[in-house]
């Protein structure tokens, strides 16, 4: 244990030994698998694995789907967060619960629910197909919908937290200057939230990038169409374990960079 520095007037809080032991075990639960992954990574063949055409396709698809899901989440999620934060209406608590549900729901359940809603025979999906010829399941669009479903709640939660933390001072000032409600929203509220909005988008994107359960359930696992990187990890695990490890490490690296960058912004205020 560290010795106390004599200049400090108050002694440092000495942690109870049992807490330290348990905390170490807890930390190890996360650290050991990561270390194992690093040890078992076939570093020599890593580059050739990442540049294989199949995996390049999966990578590109992952980028397209996760970025699209983030864009949709931004356009729909920011207004949703605003409604939840700034309007008082009956059923707000229920709406909040519903829009937060995918955070805790097993994604496979989300995928199933999406199939029932906008699948080929879903309550809306059948009309999408009959009227517009749109078929979401087993298409790239379906993968985007699945990723949006799972990742948008993270954006809504953090934007709503930021909105609740900001008082309406600047909105008031804008109103006295004659700004319409839409102008206030787009020109005052959103610019003031810029850092929080960026953080929310990055968090949302990270979740979309790692999405697996809802995508494979709703959109299937088709190389080039719906097989994103997490899905190809799943497949490679059966056929080509070293490739699975390299791809996993790639996802870990991206997620870790995001979390370290956002470390000050991940606490959601309520």
């Amino acid at each position, binding site marked *: 244990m560290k010795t106390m520095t004599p200049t400090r007037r108050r002694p440092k809080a000495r942690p109870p030994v049992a807490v330290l032991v348990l905390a170490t075990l807890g930390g190890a639960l996360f650290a050991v698998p990561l270390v194992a992954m690093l040890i078992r990574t076939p570093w020599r063949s890593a580059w050739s694995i990442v540049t294989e055409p199949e995996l390049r396709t999966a990578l590109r698809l992952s980028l397209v789907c996760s970025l699209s899901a983030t864009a949709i989440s931004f356009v729909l999620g920011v207004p949703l967060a605003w409604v939840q934060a700034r309007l008082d209406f009956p059923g707000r608590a229920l709406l909040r619960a519903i829009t937060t549900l995918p955070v805790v729901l097993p994604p496979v359940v989300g995928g199933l629910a999406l199939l029932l809603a906008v699948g080929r025979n879903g309550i809306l999906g059948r009309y999408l197909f009959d009227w517009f010829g749109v078929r979401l399941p087993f298409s790239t669009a379906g993968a985007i919908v699945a990723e949006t479903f799972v990742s948008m709640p993270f954006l809504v939660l953090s934007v709503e937290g930021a909105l609740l933390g900001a008082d309406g*001072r*600047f909105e*008031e*000032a*804008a*109103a*006295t*200057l*004659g*700004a*319409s409600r839409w*102008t206030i929203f787009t*020109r*005052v509220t959103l*610019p*003031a939230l*810029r850092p929080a909005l960026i953080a929310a988008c990055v968090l949302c994107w990270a979740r979309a990038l790692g999405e697996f359960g809802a995508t494979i359930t709703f959109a299937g696992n088709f190389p080039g169409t719906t097989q994103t990187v997490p899905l190809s990890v799943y497949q490679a695990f059966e056929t080509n374990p070293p490739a699975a490890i390299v791809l996993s490490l790639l996802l870990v690296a991206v997620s870790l960079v995001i979390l370290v960058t956002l470390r000050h912004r991940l606490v959601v205020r309520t």
Partner: protein
Amino acid sequence: MTEGPTRQSVLDAHVVIAYPRVHIDVHLTARSGEIVGLVGPNGSGKTTVLRAIAGLAPIDAGRITIGQTVVDEPNAAVLVSPQDRHVGVVFQDYRLFGHLTALENVAFALRCRGRNRVTARAESMQWLERFDLADHAHHRPTTLSGGQAQRVALARALATDPAVLLLDEPLAAIDPQSRGEIRDDLARYLDDFAGVTVLVSHHHDDIVALASTAFALDAGRVTWSGPASNLVLQSARMK
């Protein structure tokens, strides 16, 4: 900016708001060109009266009339939004938009009043020049001094051509050394304004220096009103 004849603006505000801690019942009237000062301790209801006139705090009873228009009368179910009241507000903390420059802050107001981008920028520049801020046109609010920020806020409020101008503790954020100088400047700028000005301060000397008429408020009531120059006498008598 100065086109057309000046609106004959009259303010008649009977503000009644029942807060749990204080019941506010204040009636004040003012004519064009008049500068009304509201003075009183914290919690006396000064700022609430301003917010009611601006439309940021709906009144529970009473009536507020600006010019010929009733803007808030609960009994008649009339409530005009802040956007449509033509009231300019300089908030105590100025509330300049941090993501915009000084020029863009003023232009924001003009854009809201229907000017196109080019006209808004040109007019904003004129406003800033008038307030001796031309050198700071492209600065963000955080880089402005207290006095400069106050003038940007004033220019922004006046740019909308309001019938009533509301100033909430305009000198509160100014450091004591520059206070006198900035107060003199403020008096000069307010001189040019043809509408009604309502000014809130808890310093008697600010009201005496800037206002023509004074209302002393305490616990939500008007305890004295009269020429601002008599305020010193009055406050001496009250002690």
